């Protein structure tokens, strides 16, 4: 295998809520251009890992670098798709307006989005198949549509690295396929995509890289090399295949 550039390097990352470690001494290197799943049981710290990489949560120890520089200086190269349930969808705004928020970062303080930002946002909406819903109030969108709006908001950031927190949660088959196709397209463009994922069945089909996480990092690497019973058992504490058969 050719030596890939490292997109994200995480060094000794430890996060604790009230003395209880949620992430313990994580060392992780994410090569550029992979489509990576983070898998692990509930409470394994998957979302926390994303949030602490992105500076939403303050880690107790450790550091994160993006393309060999500090994350703070590289923010514009990183986009984030939070869990759908993390916001109030009854907020008085439209689908297009939410997507436009993706342009706020490059605009910086005070400056308002203009025609260029609007055009980019409409294109992102089109890419996720939501152009017809651009003026729809966001509470009137279905769960899958809301998820697509969040994806479009990240796409409009035009980043190099995408972090997504359970983008497939509660979406129907059509949306799941639409989303995975977009993710694969991103990889084709050489972008790095990191996805917190729950459905183990689809890991080999969707992803080429995987990280097993359960408070500690269990394993990380190419799906074809490390996505096996051994690592699943280590991560989930049960023999996944045997339990499935019963």
């Amino acid at each position, binding site marked *: 295998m050719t030596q890939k550039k490292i997109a994200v390097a995480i060094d000794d990352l430890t996060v604790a809520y*009230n003395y209880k470690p949620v992430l313990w001494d994580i060392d992780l290197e994410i090569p550029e251009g992979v489509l990576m799943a983070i898998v692990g049981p509930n409470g394994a710290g998957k979302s926390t890992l994303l*949030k602490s990489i*992105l*500076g*939403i949560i303050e880690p107790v120890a450790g550091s994160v670098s993006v393309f060999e520089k500090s994350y*703070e200086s590289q*923010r*514009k190269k*990183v*986009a*984030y798709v*939070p869990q759908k349930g*993390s*916001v*109030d969808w009854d*907020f*008085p*705004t*439209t689908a297009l307006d*939410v997507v436009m*928020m993706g342009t*706020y*970062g490059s*605009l*910086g*303080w*005070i*400056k*308002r*989005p203009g025609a260029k930002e609007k055009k980019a946002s409409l294109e992102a909406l089109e890419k996720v198949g939501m152009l*017809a819903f651009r003026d729809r*109030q966001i*509470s009137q969108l*279905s769960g899958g549509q809301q998820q697509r709006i969040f994806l479009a*908001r990240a796409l409009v*950031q035009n980043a190099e690295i995408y972090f997504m927190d359970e983008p497939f949660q509660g979406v129907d088959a*059509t949306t799941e396929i639409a989303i995975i196709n977009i993710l694969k397209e991103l990889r084709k463009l050489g972008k790095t995509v990191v996805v917190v994922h729950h459905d183990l069945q689809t890991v080999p089909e969707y992803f080429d890289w995987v990280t097993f996480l359960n408070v500690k990092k269990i394993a990380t690497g190419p799906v074809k090399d490390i996505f096996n019973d051994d690592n699943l058992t280590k991560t989930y504490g049960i023999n996944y295949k045997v339990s499935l058969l019963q």
Partner: protein
Amino acid sequence: MNISEYIQLLFTDYTLRTITIGTAILGAVCGMLGSFAVLRKQSLLGDAISHAALPGIAIAFLITGTKDTNILLIGALISGLLGAFWIRQITSKTHLKSDTALGLILSIFFGVGMMLLTFIQKMPNANQAGLDKFLFGQAATLLAKDVWTLGIVSSICLVIVFTFWKEFKILLFDEAYAKTLGFNTQRIDAIITSFIVLAIILGLQTVGVVLMSAMLLAPAAAARQWTNKLSVMVFLAAIFGMFSGIFGTAISASQSNLSTGPVIVLVASVFVVFSFIFSPNRGILFKQIRLSQNRKDLQLNKTLQFMFEIVKTHKNISHPHTIKILNNFQGYTKRTLKKLEDKKYIEVNGQMWSMTKEGYHFSANLYNQDTSQNND
């Protein structure tokens, strides 16, 4: 006093005009900032801050011995900010949720304030009376200089809201995401909160500690009913707040014994009740009407669908069938048949019915709606 007399008085009576302008500005700025508080789900923050201001008023009086409003309000501002700061500290440093923190700070500060007020009232000093007007406010004490202060603070507030509109919006909708974009969310939050505190303090003189939070919440809650756009909501809330101030002052001025603050709050509540019932999309009335309309339509469509299943089996879609054939289906009545006929979906001829082309087309696509919507 009738309306035209009142309006005439508004232009001739200096005091009344001052009070009206003051309450209108106060209502507008509170409505505007209240929208942010409501959308941040910090509705009770205003209540806690206004109650937390009371000990500040009492302590300012104890230290300076004057009843100069500005000095008392500076005391109120300091203890209000202290209250807000402690609420923030409690929620971030302990396991307590924000409602508990708000309740704690509100009652502790208000308790201390009331204790100090009774203490002051028992002091052997002729100057002490009148501090309790801050409990329910007294619009009559508004002077021209107070209105100027209100006007200046409101203008600054307007400029700030306009300048940081984008930042406010993203903080209100998705704070974590705003952080990842590189915005200092704590700073944005501090700006919003300090202006809310400022508006509350300025309102204490007119509306008072106890009812002040209603000035923030009522116009915003009413405005939310009418729009799905943040800018329109903020604008409407300001308008509702302004008219609450104007109408409230008018009502209390024409009925000499009513105190202004509570009347303003009541007028604002009328806006709320009206909006909750009559707003077209979110209002209870139209929701109920739509619900029953949908039920009727569904009943009708079910009948039509049943007929369609029969018609489908025949080559000629307009082939007549007896009405008796529908007896297998419980949902139909003569009225539904009449309605379907009115809509030109079927034709009824004696004991026979037949489906029109229009009806056939409509029922064939009736339940395809969902999928076609998902695909576009």
